């Protein structure tokens, strides 16, 4: 349809963009992860596996990674538990004002991440909304410590932030289910609950997989929520990367962790993609 020259011409700018801002940084990161830092805090351009050895030997990295995955898993489950019923309600039960409610779910995405994280700080802090209320009602007499600067606070905030990301693909997949399938199921004797489990849910699985992938991957790599609300016990793997690239000035080790994370995430995306495709083809 288009000439060869035209097609080549329109391919070059995006290709240039990807190479310059995506592949080059990754390549640099890849190289850094095999270098090391001298005692004089300069990068030694000498290929070695020292960084990876350190990652395997020091339990703090493994523990933090496991904690991060634990937090991400909890966020994913909570976001699905919130996002799915919401999406189902909007798609199948609402007939009026659907658009308005849909917008209300989307609007939080327009608000700055920092604002939302700080909002939780004012709610959960020792002088915050919740503790003040509890003390006023004489439910507690001291501020509850676990509310802020804890994994709890991180999970809560990340769930708040990433629920719309699970809601959207689930909603889209539910909207794509022909309503006659629901009628056909009921016509064949299935109650609304049986219809949900045998028809609606199986057909929404691709949306659930996409939403779960979003929530897990995004919260696994998050560093702001743990930084602002996590405290020492809520540190996540990205916080370590940030400090290695910053104060600790150990770019090679930071790069090694980043590369491991990248491989983990790409692996996850690959598996999710395969599952999704198998599900929708079958």
């Amino acid at each position, binding site marked *: 349809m288009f000439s060869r020259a035209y097609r080549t011409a329109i391919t070059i700018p995006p290709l240039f963009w990807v190479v310059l801002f995506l592949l080059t940084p990754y390549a640099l990161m890849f190289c850094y992860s095999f270098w090391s830092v001298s005692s004089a805090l300069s990068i030694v351009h000498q290929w070695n596996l020292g960084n990876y050895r350190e990652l395997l030997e020091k339990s703090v990295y493994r523990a933090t990674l496991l904690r991060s995955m634990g937090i991400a898993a909890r966020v994913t489950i909570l976001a699905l538990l919130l996002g799915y019923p919401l999406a189902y309600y909007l798609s199948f039960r609402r007939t009026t004002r659907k658009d308005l409610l849909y917008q209300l779910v989307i609007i939080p995405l327009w608000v700055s991440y920092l604002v939302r994280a700080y909002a939780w700080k004012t709610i959960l802090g020792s002088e915050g909304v919740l503790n003040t209320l509890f003390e006023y009602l004489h439910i507690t007499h001291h501020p509850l410590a676990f509310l802020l600067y804890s994994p709890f606070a991180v999970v809560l905030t990340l769930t708040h932030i990433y629920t719309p990301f699970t809601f959207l693909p689930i909603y889209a997949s539910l909207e794509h289910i*022909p309503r*006659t*399938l629901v*009628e*056909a*199921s*009921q*016509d*064949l*004797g*299935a*109650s609304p609950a*049986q219809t949900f489990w*045998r*028809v609606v849910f*199986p*057909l929404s699985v691709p949306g659930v997989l996409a939403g779960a992938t979003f929530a897990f991957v995004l919260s696994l790599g998050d560093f702001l929520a743990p930084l602002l609300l996590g405290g020492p016990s809520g540190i996540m793997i990205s916080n370590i990367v940030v400090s290695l690239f910053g104060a600790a000035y150990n770019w090679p080790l930071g790069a090694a962790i980043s590369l491991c994370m990248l491989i983990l995430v790409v692996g996850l995306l690959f598996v999710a993609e395969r599952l999704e495709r198998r*599900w929708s083809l*079958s």
Partner: protein
Amino acid sequence: MDRRVTYSVTTIAEIVDPAEQARSAAPPLLSIRNVAKRFAAHIVLSAISFEVAEAEFLTILGESGSGKTTLLRIIAGFEQPDSGELWMSSQRLDNLPPYRRPVNTVFQHYALFPHLTVEQNVAYGLRIRNTPSSELATRVEQALAMVKMSTFGKAKPAKISGGQQQRVALARALINRPRLLLLDEPLSALDANLRRQMQVELKALQREVGISFLFVTHDQEEAMVMSDRIALLRNGALEQIASPREIYNRPATAYTAQFIGHTNLLRARVKGGIACCQSLSWPTQAADGPALYSLRPENIRVAAEECTRDKVRFRARVRNQAFHGATTLLQVDCSDGLALSVLMASSTGVEGNLELEFAPADAVPVRESLETA
């Protein structure tokens, strides 16, 4: 005397077919009583009442917007009527949810579950009822064999053709042994040839399983071919319900006469037992005053050589001919300007001026159809 008696018996046998006799004797399977439905200010159905007999093939025929699909959805339970009742034998149906009604539906676009195989689709209703797996397997096999789809059991619906999906949808509904099968324009998505083939198959299948079919279509030819009776809906009201023969030969209203087949509507004036429409006149039983008659194009013929008293004879000029293969449809103008359609065997070969005739009994008096739209 003897001869007269024999003669009258054969006449009755010709008019009343045995199925019709059985129907009038047995209690109805489904009765629809004064069912009405409106969406906002728009009246979709106004006080519809009729009955479906056991083992009957009844077609609800109507143009789009006549309310036929809404009526079917009310019977299936997907819509609630504003007033009126549905009864199946002695069970009231209209306050039951769809999944508790002993009816099954074949949907217009089949609505097969895309994530299940053909077999799993067919087994769906039995699974819901926790049918033991040995019985389930044999019944699924039988159902697929019935619609000649045994070899496709493991296929997903997306991998089979429209006609095959149609068969699977039929098997999926019939396997539950419903007392009444609802079919919502199931053939409309098929091409013409396959459609004609499916009409015959569907009718044969209905005879075989002996389940009442309530079939919705906008295609009058399809309705005529398949049905025991046709219920003609117009703007949400029942225009006429009768056997295909009766509805064709004795249409009650002008709308019925025009919708079912093709007809000439003659606007006549009756005076002293004679109906007059321009230069044509024929004896009638109607009372004095204006009257409307339906005269089918095939009932007008080229006049016989000798003049007979019992036929209405007139001269006309052929304006237009449309060749349909075995038959040709002529547009003729009578000397007084009255335009008529005439259907005759193509072998007749006519041209120019013609001497035509029709029997007075073929001019069927019909009611004027109210303009409600």
